[in-house]
């Protein structure tokens, strides 16, 4: 660690120095610059003020200043001279303006400078901060690197250790193997030696035996008073082949007896187990059968059949003779039936368990759970209560009706009637006011309509006049028009005959060169038409506008009875209104229907009003 420290320290120092330099440099430069720029300037200014302008060289200085200022884009300090040769005069106002602007500029510059300085400071501090961060991070990096190296070292050491341990383990294993081999070899050696020794020992024993036996040891003897009888009272028998065979027989008899005994025991055990099984089965059947009878739907058909055939089995098995049957025949039957039974029982028990656990769960989940019975009781009670309440309401109603039916008191009845009358009056009044309002509305509408009709008539009249004048002009210029125009004239003549149908056909026949003029456009067109009536090329335009008009009028005709139109036409002022109507082609019908309604209403009103 110390090494690292010593190594890193100088680096850090130099680095910090370097960074400080770099940090310092821009600001210092800037400040230097600023200083360079500002201080000499001020100096200059001072010197300028002291030396630049004297009483002698006012003119020059002013001209110089003027030049300078003009080059910087300021207006000239001199008044604009009319004559070229006349001496230019100093424009005080311009000077002042210039000064003011300069001052403003100066202030602005100062402000900017200040801003720049603060920013510079900020940046400097940021720089510092970043610098410190950088150094910190560098340190951190260094430490982490060191740590990493340390860890790597540890890892390496551990690996080394692990390798060593592995080696040791291997060595140990080898050792174990070796030791086992040694043990085995020693054991064989030992056994070998033992055998050798034993052989020697046996030889010795043999020798000793011979010696002992050959010596005819007088001492080896039994001194007995008299021989006693055998315990079983029999005399000893000679050892012959017969006895040998008898012994064999005896032995096998014993073995046989033992096996028989064991078999008997096993049989007994089997019988016992069978009995237990039988009993178990019976009990299971008795346990399961009532359940089968009661909730028939709960037990599956399969289990039902199982039970039934199990019962058959039981019937068969219950016979005593079953115990005499050999195991193979009974075993399968019994075990199968028991197995089936057991399965049923198991499933049943599981079901019960599930139920119990569910109940437990519910019980544990919330304490104040209501059992089904309680719930039902509660609902029943509530229903009863509802019934009672209904009955009560009914009786109350009946009573009320009875009270109403039988006139209790004259006062009360009159009062009641008054009440009713008052209510009625109020209602009527309201209705009346509503009605009045409606009437007013209708009136207003009617008025507007009549006005519109009047306007329409006026417009129409103007139009007629225009047309008349136009026709007149056309007739006058007839000679200059070609053949086509003559056709037009013919048509127009027809139109003048006030047949709207013809007009329509004309319109259909004419090629539609331009789209339908808008409502806004058409009055312009009209105005154009009226204005530049003499211009010949606008004829087609006019035609179109007119066709438009005619169209609308035809619509008008279609909806409104000719009698209605007639007075309008007679009025000759309804053209304007027509145009306005034409502006909203979609609402024409509604408008007119509304019109008709107003009329009818007005009629009704007239009827109503006394």
């Amino acid at each position, binding site marked *: 660690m110390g090494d690292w420290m010593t190594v890193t320290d100088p680096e850090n120092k130099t680095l910090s120095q370097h960074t400080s330099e770099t940090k310092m440099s821009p600001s210092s430069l800037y400040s230097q610059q600023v200083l360079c720029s500002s201080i000499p300037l001020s100096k200059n200014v001072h010197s300028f003020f002291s030396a630049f302008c004297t009483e002698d060289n006012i003119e020059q200085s002013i001209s110089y200043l003027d030049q300078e200022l003009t080059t910087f884009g300021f207006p000239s300090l001199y008044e604009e001279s009319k004559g070229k040769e006349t001496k230019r005069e100093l424009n005080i106002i311009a000077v002042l303006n210039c000064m003011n602007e300069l001052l403003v500029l100066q202030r602005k510059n100062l402000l900017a400078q200040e801003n720049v300085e603060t920013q510079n400071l900020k940046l400097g501090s940021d720089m510092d901060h970043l610098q410190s961060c950088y150094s910190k991070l560098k340190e951190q990096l260094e430490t982490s690197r060191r740590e990493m190296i340390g860890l790597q070292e540890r890892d390496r050491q551990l690996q080394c250790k692990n390798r060593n341990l592995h080696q040791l383990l291997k060595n140990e294993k080898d050792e174990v193997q070796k030791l086992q081999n040694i043990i085995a070899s020693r054991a064989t050696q030992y056994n070998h030696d033992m055998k050798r020794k034993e052989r020697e020992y046996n030889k010795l024993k043999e020798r000793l035996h011979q010696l002992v036996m050959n010596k005819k040891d007088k001492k080896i003897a*039994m001194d007995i008073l008299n*021989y*006693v009888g055998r315990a079983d009272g029999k005399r*000893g028998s000679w050892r012959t082949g017969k006895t040998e065979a008898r012994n064999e027989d005896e032995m*096998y008899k014993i073995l046989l007896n033992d096996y028989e005994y064991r078999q008997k025991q096993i049989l007994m055990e089997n019988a016992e187990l069978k009995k237990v099984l039988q009993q178990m089965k019976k009990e299971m059947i008795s346990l399961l059968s009532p359940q089968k009878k009661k909730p028939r739907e709960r037990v599956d058909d399969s289990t039902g059949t199982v039970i039934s055939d199990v019962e058959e089995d039981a019937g068969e098995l219950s016979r005593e003779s079953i115990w005499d049957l050999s195991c193979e025949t009974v075993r399968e039957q019994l075990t199968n039936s028991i197995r089936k039974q057991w399965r049923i029982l198991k499933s049943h028990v599981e079901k019960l368990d599930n139920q119990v656990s569910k109940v437990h769960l519910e019980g544990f989940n919330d304490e104040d759970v209501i059992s089904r019975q309680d719930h039902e009781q509660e609902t029943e009670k509530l229903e009863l209560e509802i019934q009672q309440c209904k009955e009560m309401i009914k009786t109350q109603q009946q009573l009320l009706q009875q009270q109403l039916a039988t006139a209790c008191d004259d006062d009360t009845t009159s009062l009641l009637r008054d009440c009713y009358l008052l209510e009625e009056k109020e209602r009527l009044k309201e209705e009346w006011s509503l009605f009045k309002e409606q009437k007013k509305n209708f009136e207003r509408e009617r008025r507007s309509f009549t006005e519109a009709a009047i306007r329409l008539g006026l417009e129409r009249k103007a139009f007629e006049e225009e047309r008349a004048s136009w026709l007149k002009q056309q007739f006058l210029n007839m000679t200059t028009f070609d053949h086509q125009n003559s056709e037009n004239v013919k048509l127009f003549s027809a139109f003048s005959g006030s047949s709207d149908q013809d007009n329509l056909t004309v319109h259909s026949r004419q090629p539609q060169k331009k789209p339908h003029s808008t409502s806004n456009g058409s009055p312009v067109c009209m105005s154009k038409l009226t204005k530049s009536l003499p211009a010949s090329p606008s004829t087609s335009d006019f035609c179109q506008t007119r066709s438009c008009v005619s169209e609308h009028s035809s619509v008008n005709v279609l909806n409104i009875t000719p009698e209605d139109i007639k007075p309008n036409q007679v009025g000759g002022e309804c053209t304007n209104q027509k145009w306005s109507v034409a502006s909203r082609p979609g609402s024409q019908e509604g408008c007119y229907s509304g019109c008709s309604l107003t009329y009818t209403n007005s009629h009704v009103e007239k009827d109503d009003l006394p």
Partner: protein
Amino acid sequence: MNFSEVFKLSGLLCKFSPDGKYLASCVQYRLVVRDVNTLQIVQLYTCLDQIQHIEWSADSLFILCAMYKRGLVQVWSLEQPEWHCKIDEGSAGLVASCWSPDGRHILNTTEFHLRITVWSLCTKSVSYIKYPKACLQGTTFTRDGRYMALAERRDCKDYVSIFVCSDWQLLRHFDTDTQDLTGIEWAPNGCVLAVWDTCLEYKILLYSLDGRLLSAYSAYEWSLGIKSVAWSPSSQFLAVGSYDGKVRILNHVTWKMITEFEHPAAINNPKIVVYKEAEKSPQLGLGCLSFPPPRAGAGPLPTSESKYEIASVPVSLQTLKPVTDRANPKIGVGMLAFSPDSYFLATRNDNVPNAVWVWDIQKLRLFAVLEQLSPVRAFQWDPQQPRLAICTGGSRVYLWSPAGCLSVQVPGEGDFAVLSLCWHLSGDSMALLSKDHFCLCFLETEAAVGTACRQLSGHT
């Protein structure tokens, strides 16, 4: 519970007659036969030298007294006191002597296991059986006395010979697949012979009476193997205790292992009752009154009193650190005994010498553990009921039954260190043997004992 007066004894030689009427005990070279009920001396025989071994004949008519040092066997008749028989093995020497099941033959094993001499008391005939194997348990008789199995060693191979005891005819002779046969044992039904190998190898072989190999079982290799073997009285189970501190129970149908009883030093199962013997200073009138000494006022009060306490699990038992660089290390299950009804199995793990484990064979699990204050010397089941008597070489005898546990101070002058014990056939009494003395302990009737047990267990 009553105690008889203390009689002299030497060499821990004290035996009930098989019919339960008499009690034979040895004092140096004298053989004393007493009536069990009255404890009056019925007969007194004098042998030629200090008796080293006595054995009743199966019909309780004869007693053989072996004097190995002199190579002599003397036989006495109970019915005819004047009758005598002396068998001298001469220069061949004598290392073991036993009755044949018929009670008319005596089998003497000579020194160096040169041969077995079969002496008949009925005829003058003498038979020799060569090549008996010098091993822990080389001869075994079937319970019915018909057959004898004998381990033999010939040409560095193990053999088993089955003899018919009635005429000592060889019935079967077969070699066993063992490295170094250590023991053989007949099943109580006399049809299966268990043969186990040396402790260096875990191997147990089961042979039928006709010499067929029924099964062979080996639990593990390399480590030290079988230390003790016991048949259940019903012949259903064969318990094999081994040096790894486990008892493996084999069944009689498939001869496969049913279960494995471990003997852990720490007992955590709360179902297991752990009786812990606790010693405390005597409180007058409590311990003594229930067991009044037979001679009133003669016996001094015991210096301390012990009782059982039911230890709360988990219990950690005292364990011995086995010395591994010595032969016959004190580890593994060295003592095994089934109760007469085959319901319980009592075991002792030699590296937990103070504890006796009692296993429930019906449920095949540990039932109870008794931890004594000193190492258990011997235990024996009551022949009539599941009742276990334990001695630890102290002056107390301990009884366990499923109902509870009790410890009884043996009254008498000085310290009566019970080194061994043997039950009477009826289970009503037992003989407690110390180095120089023995006494009889009479247990009350079953009901009385039961209440006593209950009281004691309640007391603890």
